[in-house]
Structure formats: C-alpha cells, structure tokens
C-alpha cells in the first residue's frame, strides 16, 4: 500500500532530502522556509544524521559545505534575504566543487521585503547572485509531490556534478498542503558522488574524468587533499597561471553545459494545436493550468509550458515552440526575470507578453484567463 500523506511543501522538501540520503542540515531560521529545518531537526537524528542550527545564514551554508567535504550528503535552506547572505559561499561550493542542496523558498524583496508573501524574485539571483561564472542547476517545484521528487533529483544532480543545486520553491508551494503519495524506497535512482579509484598516493584531487567531473574523497577516509576557494590547479592548489585558470574556470561551466540535455526538464500541456502558450513555473503554473483547462473547454487553442529546471533554462525547447505558436505569455511574480530568457530563446519568432505582479499576491486563474483572451 502506497503511503499517502497530507503534507506541506516545506515538509515534502525535507522528507525528499532525507529519502535522497541527506544526513546533514545546517541552517538559520527564516520565513517562509523554516519548516524545512524544523523537520530536519526531527528527522535527521532519528537516522543517525546531524542537524545544527547555526548562528547565521552564512554559518548555515558553511557548515553544510564542511559536512559535505567530510562525506555526508548535506543541505541548507533559506529564503530571499538569507540566500543573498549565502551567495559568497554558494560561490565557494561552485569553485571548490562541493555537492550541496540549497532550498530557496522565495518571498518578496528587496531586503526584508515581504516575509510571508509569495514571490519569484530569486530566479536571477539563483543564476547570477554570486560573483564569477559557473554552471547552475535550479529546479522550481509546483506541487507538494514535486517538492519531494525534485529534492531527491536535486541531491542526485549535486552529487553527480559536484556543485550546489537549488530547489526554488516559493511561499505558496512551501506553505501549501496537499496530497502526496510517498514513493516506495527504491522508486528513484539515488546517485552518490564518484569516489577516487586510485590509491591515496596517486590521488590528484581536481583531476577531472572524461565527464569533466573529478572524483571526490571525504576528509578522514584516507585521502589527504586541499580544498580552497581560490582558483586552483588539478592539485587543488592556488594558481596564477593563465592556462591553469582557464582550465578550471571553464571546466566548472562546461561540466553542466555539456550535460544540459540530461538536466533540463519541463512539462507541456495542451500544446499540440496551441496558438497561445503560457510559460509559467512554480505556484503561478497552478493558476495558469486552471485557466488553460477552462479556456480549452471554450475552444481556445491555448497550451502551457512549464520549465521545471529554471537553470539550465529550456531555451532550445522554447525556441522550437516559438516556431509554431503566435503568442507566448509569461506571467511571473517578479518584475520580469524568466521572461528575459524566454525572449532570448524566441528571438522575435512570435510575440512575447510580459505579465508581472509584485504586490505579494498570487496570479489567480481569472487573471491568466484575461491575459490569454487579450491575444487569443
């Protein structure tokens, strides 16, 4: 018998993490993501895992990176202002290639902004928030079921690519409760980081395999290696040599780029004959789907495209669909972030309509129906 629960999104994220093998959480309380750490404080010790409430947001991600270096699948979580604080160390995890998962339950900003109100304000922060270039993997769940499944996937990707992966929920997805069917253990593939296959004496810690990803040892398991936030060579040692810098700087972008097709996920509905397409993600996509289903009953040729990975952005797929539709509507709970990516992909092949709401409210199905009717 499948286990059926009525869970909050934040709980589903936490339980998905645990199911993926997460055994460390370091964090700091912040609305609207706090329930993730509350659940972790309860679940992890039951499994012999560790939870620590750190003194600040930066400490939360720092401890998380440290625990991952010592071999545990590790996670932190936060929301807008906390994610802003974590940005430097997100960069650290990108350059030092440390797998971690970061849940970002988005709220309105800038600054303290709207702690209890929904927003999709962190889409660009997730990609460009830390200084320097890196590949980015970020998911946007739109249901409680997906919070769980995506968090499992986020751990798999973090472990595979040796880098941070973001789970970009929003306040509504994080706090909403709905039915979830807990998958039986073994339903999903669980990925663990590659371990070195050579003996410690032959271990070159940042020498990548053919996939551009170096195997990772854990502190304490017999391999002695150096981890640094400085740009380093294959030995993990700081370098100022242009060729070594070039190699490292490009590899941490390329390792994601070249596997883009493995990573990118999206979901389409009613696209076969659609002339108008709504592109939306997270909580907005729930309203959009309702609007589309109602208008379909009226015979309107409208479809929905939902990016599940915000990064890498499904640009090739959007480019394809722009060849066969007349209008793309992009409703977002920000002043227009993802729409820039949509426009880039569309490149003028059809009309792109920006729809933006930044008053802390959610787009209701009626709003989206009216946007569709304006162009259909």
């Amino acid at each position, binding site marked *: 018998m499948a286990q059926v629960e009525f869970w909050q999104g934040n709980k589903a994220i936490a339980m998905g993490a645990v199911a993926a093998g997460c055994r460390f959480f370091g964090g700091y309380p912040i609305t609207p993501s706090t329930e993730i750490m509350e659940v972790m404080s309860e679940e992890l010790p039951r499994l012999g895992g560790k939870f620590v409430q750190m003194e600040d947001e930066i400490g939360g991600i*720092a401890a998380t990176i440290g625990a991952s270096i010592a071999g545990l699948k590790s996670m932190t979580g936060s929301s807008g202002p906390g994610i802003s604080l974590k940005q430097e160390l997100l960069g650290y995890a990108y350059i030092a290639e440390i797998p971690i998962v970061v849940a970002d339950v988005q709220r309105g900003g800038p600054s303290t902004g709207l702690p209890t109100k929904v927003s999709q304000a962190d889409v660009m922060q997730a990609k460009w928030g830390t200084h320097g270039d890196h590949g980015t993997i970020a998911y946007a769940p739109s249901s409680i079921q997906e919070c769980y499944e995506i968090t499992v996937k986020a751990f798999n990707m973090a472990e595979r690519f040796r880098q941070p992966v973001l789970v970009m929920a929003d306040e509504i997805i994080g706090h909403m409760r709905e039915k979830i069917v807990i998958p039986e253990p073994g339903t999903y593939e669980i990925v663990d980081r590659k371990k070195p296959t050579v003996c410690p004496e032959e271990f070159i810690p940042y020498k990548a395999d053919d996939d551009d990803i170096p195997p990772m040892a854990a502190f*304490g398991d017999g391999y002695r290696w150096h981890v640094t936030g400085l740009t380093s060579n294959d030995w993990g040692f700081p370098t100022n040599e242009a060729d070594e810098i070039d190699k490292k700087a490009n590899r941490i972008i390329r390792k994601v780029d070249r596997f883009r097709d493995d990573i990118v996920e999206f979901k389409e509905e009613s696209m076969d004959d659609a002339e108008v397409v709504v592109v939306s993600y997270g909580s907005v996509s729930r309203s959009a789907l309702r609007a589309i289903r109602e208008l379909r009953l009226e015979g309107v040729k409208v479809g929905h495209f939902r990016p599940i990975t915000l990064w890498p952005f499904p640009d090739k797929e959007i480019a394809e669909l722009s060849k066969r539709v007349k209008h793309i509507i992009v409703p977002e709970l920000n002043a227009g972030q993802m729409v820039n990516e949509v426009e880039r992909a569309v490149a003028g092949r059809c009309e792109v309509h920006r729809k933006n709401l930044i008053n802390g409210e959610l787009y209701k199905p009626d709003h989206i129906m009216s946007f569709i009717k304006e162009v259909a």
Partner: protein
Amino acid sequence: MPREDVKKLLRTKFMPHIWCPGCGHGIIMHAILRALADLKIPQDQICISSGIGCSSRMPGYIDACTLHTAHGRSLAFATGVKMANPGLTIVNVMGDGDGTAIGGNHFIHACRRNIGITAVVMNNNIYGMTGGQASPTTPEGAFASTAPYGAVDPTFDICKLAEGAGATFVARATVAQPAMCEQILKKAILHQKKGFAVVEIVSFCHTQFGRKNKRSRPMDNFNFLKDNSVMKAKADTMTAEELKGKIIIGEFVNIEDAREYTERYDEVIARAQKA
C-alpha cells in the same frame, strides 16, 4: 631543520610559502606540527582549516586534510566537518581580523557550542595580506594604512572574549616562546575531546605593522614580545597600571569535565531513536 616526523607533515611541493622572510607565522606552524607529531595523530585524521589572510594560507603547506575556506567562515565550515566526522582532529587557524572581525560571530558561537575544535588565533595586530589595515587587535594609537593618525578603536582581548563566550580551554603565548606554544597547543589539541579550545598566539607582521610602528625588523618584534610578555601567575600579582601594554601569557581556562558538542549531539540521536 625540522624533525623527520615534522617534515612528513609538510607539503613541500606547494612551497615556497607566501610568508615574508622573518614572519612570525612560521613559528606557529612549526609548533602546531610538532604538537601534532608528538601526539602521533594519524595524518589522515588531521584536518587543518582556515579562513582568509596570511595566517590562513597555512593549511596548504600541511600534508593533511586541509580546508582553506572564505574570510571569517573557517569555524563554521569546521563545525560541519566535525559534526560529520567527529573522529577528525581539527586545528582551525585564523588571523585576528579573520577570527574576531568578519568571523567574530562564528568565533563566539563555536565557543558557546563547545565543539571539539582547536582554534588558533594568529594575532599579528594587522590585516597583513591586504596591506596593513587596522584590525580589532591593532593597539589604540598604533598606525595602520587605514589609521594614518593612529588607531582609534579599542581592542579585543581575544582570550577574555573566548572565555566569556564559553570556550572550555583558553590560553595565550607569543611566538617569542616557541616551546610554550607547542606545549599549549598539545594541551589544546587533546582538549578537543572535551570541547572548544582557543589558543591565541601573538605573532607579528614586521612588513605591514612593524614598518609603520618603529618595529620594521623581525628581531624588533621578537624583542618586543619577549620584553612585554608576563606569565599569568606573575600578572595576577600586578596592578592594572603595571600591566598596561603587557601581554599576559599562560592558561586562562581549562575545564576538565566539559562536555563536547558532538558527544552531546550523540545523545540527541539516542533520544530521537528512542522516541
């Protein structure tokens, strides 16, 4: 030349090191390595962590599990490492600016948690790597590149700060007493089983601090540290006036029956699994 068992702990392929000739930091590194070698801690089970700055380049030169983190954050990283693998012996080195300015919050909370980490604050009273800016331990009136008319901020007493925040082992020495550094470090490393140990080692930066403060040669600084160090036992008999400008060295806190954080967390695990 270092002893053979100390040499074994060096990553010579990452040398030459970045420290200026005559820098005090090498004395601290040597003392740490002698302490680790004497205690016969398996090399694979040693973690040396650090933040950013001259002091924090030390881990790169040590053949262990080494973690050069971000500015001020080393203790927070080390907290995660220790929790994930309590069997590791962690020596966390940091500078005065790294540890008590940008990393001050992590420092006091690591003290409060009493997590089994040995924190070595290499206090040279200045931000050396960035060119000699005033730090929280730059003496009032001393000159720095951001204090051209003399530092105006009062200083931290790192040992008092650590004691007040709950560290269960606190001691201070200067690089003018290398043998004492080693002895204290050994005790502080052994103390990891009981909790958080803070060792402030007063070092010096003749390049950035000395040249602006009439101590431009390394020996000026050694002599200054030697002449102004006062053992705690003697300091206890001196007046505040007599102690002005002196560096009190010795052991300030050593709580033998302290309970270490990861051990206490194991009890959380036991309670959770029983519930």
